[in-house]
């Protein structure tokens, strides 16, 4: 029996009568992580992994009816045994393992296989059916090790500083920003952040993630000489806006997996593109799928057709799930 099916409201578990990351309001919503396209407001009950509670509350409001479960803990609901397992995507992100009458399904939400220090690393879970994303589901997407990318970012910042230019690094406010903060060499200069980034930093710090000191960019006067030494982190919505004018002469960069392609970087119109994603690359997707031992794979948002065809040719029972994920964070830069 199918433990998860696609319904107009979202991915639904029929025996358990609940939804996973629904895109329309429902009674019971199991949330894999706090990105806007996976956790929407208006649901009556929320269940998420314990480390994600802070994020969810800060994004959806303190008042939501939220229940949490530690990674690995089990919850029985209508005979379905549910547990969360780290997805390595952002703080609190989880794969949802469902077991019912000996059948095991895992819905992985969004995931990344390289550990980054800001969230629990991805943990392969054995299952019969694995639901996987396919954001970067083409073999052109292979990530360089993150140490290489952080060295590039540090070098870019240092070079700008030497030239008396501010360094504006555009990236998603939740997850990417904190991962970069964690990996940066904070001794290079002061780090300033946009108002959209700081509240999330606070949640990460409260969860025990050691982030370097950050200052609110709005507190600095336009001509403050400090700006010319600083690295400024801003969300994509601030890129190229009048908010940026205050930094005088600056170099800008965008950090995303899409920066792997020259065309997408040029379309962004930034000086530099850093290839850093919180999603699995092509080898990562294939590795994760193989680790689950699943014979059946349901593919959601991204290069669905490509991954389905490729897995089928590898002898797996692969199918597509139509979802409405990928509307936020960096899953929707281009749809390959």
């Amino acid at each position, binding site marked *: 029996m199918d433990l998860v099916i696609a319904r107009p409201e979202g991915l639904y578990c029929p025996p358990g009568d609940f939804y996973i990351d629904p895109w329309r309001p429902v009674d019971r919503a199991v949330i894999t992580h706090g990105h806007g396209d996976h956790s929407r407001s208006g649901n009556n009950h929320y269940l998420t992994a314990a480390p994600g509670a802070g994020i969810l509350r800060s994004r959806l409001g303190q008042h939501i009816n939220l229940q949490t479960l530690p990674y690995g803990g089990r919850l029985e609901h209508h005979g379905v045994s549910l547990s969360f397992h780290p997805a390595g995507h952002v703080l609190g992100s989880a794969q949802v393992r469902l077991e019912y009458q000996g059948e095991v399904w895992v819905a992985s939400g969004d995931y990344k296989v390289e550990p980054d220090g800001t969230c629990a690393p991805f943990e392969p879970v054995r299952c019969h059916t694995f639901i996987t994303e396919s954001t970067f589901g083409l073999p*052109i997407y292979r990530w360089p090790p993150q140490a290489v990318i952080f060295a590039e970012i540090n070098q870019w910042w240092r070079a700008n500083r030497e030239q008396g230019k501010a360094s504006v690094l555009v990236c998603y406010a939740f997850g990417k920003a904190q991962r970069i903060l964690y990996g940066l060499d904070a001794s290079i200069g002061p780090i300033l952040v946009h108002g959209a980034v700081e509240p999330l930093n606070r949640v990460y710090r409260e969860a025990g993630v050691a982030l370097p000191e950050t200052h609110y960019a709005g507190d600095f006067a336009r001509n403050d000489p400090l700006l010319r030494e600083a690295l400024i982190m801003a969300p994509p919505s601030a890129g190229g806006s009048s908010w940026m004018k205050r930094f005088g002469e600056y170099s800008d960069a965008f950090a995303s997996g899409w920066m792997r392609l020259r*065309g997408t970087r040029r379309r962004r119109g930034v000086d530099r593109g850093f290839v850093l994603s919180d999603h699995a690359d092509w080898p990562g997707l294939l590795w994760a799928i193989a680790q689950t031992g699943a014979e059946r794979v349901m593919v959601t948002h991204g290069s669905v057709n490509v991954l389905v065809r490729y897995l089928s040719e590898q002898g797996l029972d692969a199918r597509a799930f139509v979802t409405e994920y990928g509307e936020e964070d960096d899953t929707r830069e281009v749809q390959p």
Partner: protein
Amino acid sequence: MKAFAELYLRLDGTTSSNAKLLALREYFSQAPAQDAAWAVYFLAGGRPRQLVPTRLLRELAIELSGLPDWLFEESYQSVGDLAETISLLLPDSAHASDQGLAEWIEQHLLPLRGQPQEEVRARLPVLWAQLDRQSLMLCLKLITGSFRVGVSKLLVTRALAQLADLDAKRVAQRMVGYTDLSHKPSPASYLKLIAAESADEHSQRGGQPYPFFLAHALQAPTEQFDALLGPVSDWQAEWKWDGIRAQVVKREGQLWIWSRGEELVTDRFPELHSLASSLPDGTVLDGEILVWKPGASSEDVAVQPFALLQQRLGRKTLGKKLLGDAPVVLQAYDLLEWQDHDWRSRPQHERRAQLERVVAEYPQAPLLLSPLLTGDSWADLAEQREQSRNLGVEGLMLKQRDALYGVGRTKDMGQWWKWKIDPFSVDAVLIYAQRGHGRRASLYSDYTFAVWDAPAGTPGRALVPFAKAYSGLSDEEMRKVDAIVRKTTVETFGPVRSVTPTLVFELGFEGIALSKRHKSGIAVRFPRMLRWRLDKPVEEADDLATLQALLS
């Protein structure tokens, strides 16, 4: 190769001209002359002929990456550039070759041309394995001839001039012909570019033309011309011909014909070879090569559409019939050198007067003098411009009477304006879309447009495709169209999607001609999107009759 790859990365990573200049200067100050010679060549737009067939590159890349064909194809469609796709799919290399650009080009890449397939298959993987990813992409771009980076020839010229402490115009002069296929970059040719000024510079130039002076587009309403340009009497007006801009150089008993792209095209135009014997040595004419109707009387419109010239250019050999059907002339409009003297720093009117004397003194059938138009006012000229389409020209050229002959698109030595007539335009329906290349990679940005085959109300009328266009939309609009294409896809054939017709665009184009190659029977020139007609339903798009009316 590595140093050049780093330069590429720096140039590609900025939009600031100053940052690019700095990067270029730093590169050239450190590069050995043999590498610099090739770097100038590629940066200034030089492209050797394709070294390896594309098909072979694909096969080899598929083999080495271990991917199924279809997945390679999907990847290519997302990346939009073959060289980049291959560089992203090949296994990472642990090596990084220290050999320089020249060594790579001369020892490894150029020798690939003409090798039997088996030999290329054996050599390429070994070469590729020596390169880090960035160098690999560059190497592949050089092989496929798709090397492009946002640097103009003018910028390279400026960087070299700054480095060698020379006048940029001098370097520009020396650069002419540098990227022509007949020239092979060498340390000597590079050192010549940056050598100190010498007294015999002028006599050493052989068949070299001068850098072309280019016009800017004039798009203001006529009423503003007095304010913008001053009195009409300060200007020389001519027809703007729609042909091939060319310089005819006669020196040392020999004739050279150069196109605007600084390619030597002497062989392509045998009709003009008679000028070798008629023109005196030390003469350089600037003008337009046009197909001229054989035996045209003075009442006929003698100039033929660009399409005919294009057909001629497409042919490998120029047969008797073709030369008889589509003979060319040179409409001369400027004199750059006379009696061995560089005339470029004399004012336009003086050059013109001398040009008229030269054409009168050395008459030759294919040499014509591009006529001047006279008008008392801008309004008067505007009225004459209205005849452009009937006369087979693109509009008017306005040249400041005291303009010197500048270099490229400079404005400081005098001005030339092209005052083109408005393009033809029709409202057409988007029916197919394909993903683009470069900045448009992964976006459905290349479209096929159709008009109706019968007037509104005709039962069963259909849309017939007649033009492809990919320019004219803003990034924002393109993103929106991309989303609509994805939502309204009916069928996918390889990289092309057919869509439910919902989008109407005003398409502009410069020329229109009958064509057997197109379903609609019509071919248009330079089609582009002028605007998105959000206000127009598909039923109200134009039909074939509108296009046919434009043909006359």
